[in-house]
């Protein structure tokens, strides 16, 4: 129907772990350049949702369609999904701590991924410039040759966002980017995500309502594995069901 303005379409997806329905008939759509916040209480299925889209978890039923050609992501493995253009940032910053910021970014940078291509890879001037630009963007230009393990928590988060941008994904899945950050760091992170969403789809999973308010975007509320409400933040927070789930506890 609306293939032009849908990048990812998840429909009727369910998955159970040992009888527990983590995702229950979930449907979700996002356009090619859209910022979306996904909120919901613990156990609402936010992380499982990301696991399904990135190929880590196989759903029991449902469809996950991607791109103009509506290819099924369920037929691809994690690496193929990432190559198709889905980037993921984990809750805990996961950068390669024993390698330099430069190496981390270069590894993430979009380029052929086969072992042969990687073995014979030689960084072009363009590659190196792009890595430096990315470092600039996430505020790590001073730290390019430092080992990632020495960075502060916030810097690691940015490095990971920089790595995601380096992948040039069409969809960015970001899990709790603001966790453990100082107010200034949060502001920087918000800017990065808003900027990124101008050219691609960004889905931010977040607990923190204040952070979500600052993103100023459409919000999807998950509860018990399905969508409870969707719309602007003020709209969904006025929804009695959402109030029940969030404030009734």
């Amino acid at each position, binding site marked *: 129907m609306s293939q032009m303005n849908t990048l990812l379409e998840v429909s009727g997806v369910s998955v159970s772990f040992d009888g527990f329905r983590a995702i229950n008939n979930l449907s979700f759509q996002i356009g090619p350049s859209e910022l979306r916040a996904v909120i919901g209480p613990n156990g609402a299925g936010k992380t499982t949702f990301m696991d399904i889209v990135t190929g880590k978890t196989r759903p029991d039923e449902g469809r996950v369609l991607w791109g103009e050609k509506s290819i099924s992501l369920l037929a691809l493995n994690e690496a193929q999904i990432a190559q198709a253009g889905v980037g993921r940032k984990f809750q805990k910053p996961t950068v390669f701590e024993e390698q330099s910021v430069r190496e981390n970014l270069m590894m993430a940078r979009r380029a052929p991924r086969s*072992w042969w291509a990687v073995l014979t890879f*030689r960084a072009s001037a363009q590659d190196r410039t792009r890595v430096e630009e990315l470092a600039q963007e996430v505020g790590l230009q001073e730290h390019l040759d430092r080992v990632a393990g020495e960075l502060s928590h916030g810097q690691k988060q940015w490095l990971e966002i920089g790595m995601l941008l380096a992948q040039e994904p069409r969809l960015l899945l970001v899990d709790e980017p603001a966790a453990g950050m100082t107010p200034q760091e949060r502001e920087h992170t918000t800017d990065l995500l808003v900027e990124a969403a101008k050219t691609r789809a960004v889905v931010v999973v977040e607990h923190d309502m204040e952070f979500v308010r600052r993103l100023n975007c459409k919000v999807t509320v998950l509860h018990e594995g399905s969508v409870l409400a969707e719309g602007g933040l003020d709209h969904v927070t006025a929804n009695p069901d959402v109030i029940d789930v969030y404030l009734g506890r």
Partner: protein
Amino acid sequence: MRKSFVAQNPSVLVFLICLSLFTVVVTVLAEGFGVGALSTSFIKTLGKTLCLCLVAIAMDLIWGYCGILSLGHFAFFGLGGYMVGMWLMYARTEIIVEGALAQGDIPPTPQEIIDGIGNQIFGVVGSSDFPVVWTFADSLMSQLLLVLVVPGLLALVFGWLAFRSRVTGVYLSILTQAMTLALALYLFQNDSGLRGNNGLSGLQNLPGVTAPQSAVSLWFFWASALALGAGYILSAWVVSGKFGSVIRGIRDNEARVRFLGYPVESFKLMLFTLTAMIAAVAGALYYPQAGIINPAEIAPIASIYLAVWVAIGGRGRLYGAVLGAAFVSLVSTWFTGGQAPDINLGFYTVQWVDWWQVILGLSFVLVTLFAPKGIGGLFDLLKREDKA
């Protein structure tokens, strides 16, 4: 401007200089060439040690850099030895048999010669027919090719099955132990085609070569040094660029590498196969110096020793693997060779042949607990003092 490979990896140059100096000094001191201060058997020990350093580099690539604790790489080492051993044994026996048959009145037919060789080689396991695996044994080039092909194929098939099923960590280690054990047990059988527990022997004698062992031992020593140097450069190149980044990434966080879009399994498979082939080359040079290969060589414990060398030397750096293998295997030779004097405590005599194993085991535990960087970690201390 892009820095050259050597400029980026100064340790490669340092290593090559040390290796060349060592080779020259040993050559000058050797019995077969220079002063004669080093006996032929000691030259062989040194040559073998260089081969062990090479297989330790392979182990370091797969374990230290990629985090795959393979406890089966000595199987590939041994297979490499078998492949080259088959030609050595065949060609030398052929010369002997031809010589013996030429004594007769009528010149022997080709079939008689082949039967004679078969009798000589397989008489010990009660057979005289050539098994299929000896099809190419008469051709040196084919057997040298098989040194790479056979272990490479085994690693490819084994790795494909294991990595595709995402077997990792200790389960993979157990699986590789099972592989080398299965191979050893198979080769122990008399009808395996490789002379059962007798193995292949007389490998130190090069067919058609009349030069004395003192010279031959030096040739192999040089060849081993050359192979070690080449293997070191190759490995340093493999781990230096983006490929090195990716495999270290796989070691530290495999799932993350997958989400970056890298097909982790094919990287592991490629590296597993490459290191198997490096190990095989090392084995092919080692066993002609050892003179004999039998299935006991690829018993599971051998591959575990390999991991111990790399751990003691310092994994995740190539010179660490070389130092560990050289140090531990030379000390081991000294202790188990009977040179170390037994210590009589009156109530108990410490026999080093037995106690060496205990010391080795203890030092492995101590290194793992207190010095995870191994001997190579000492170089970090030096570097830090330079900076200070």
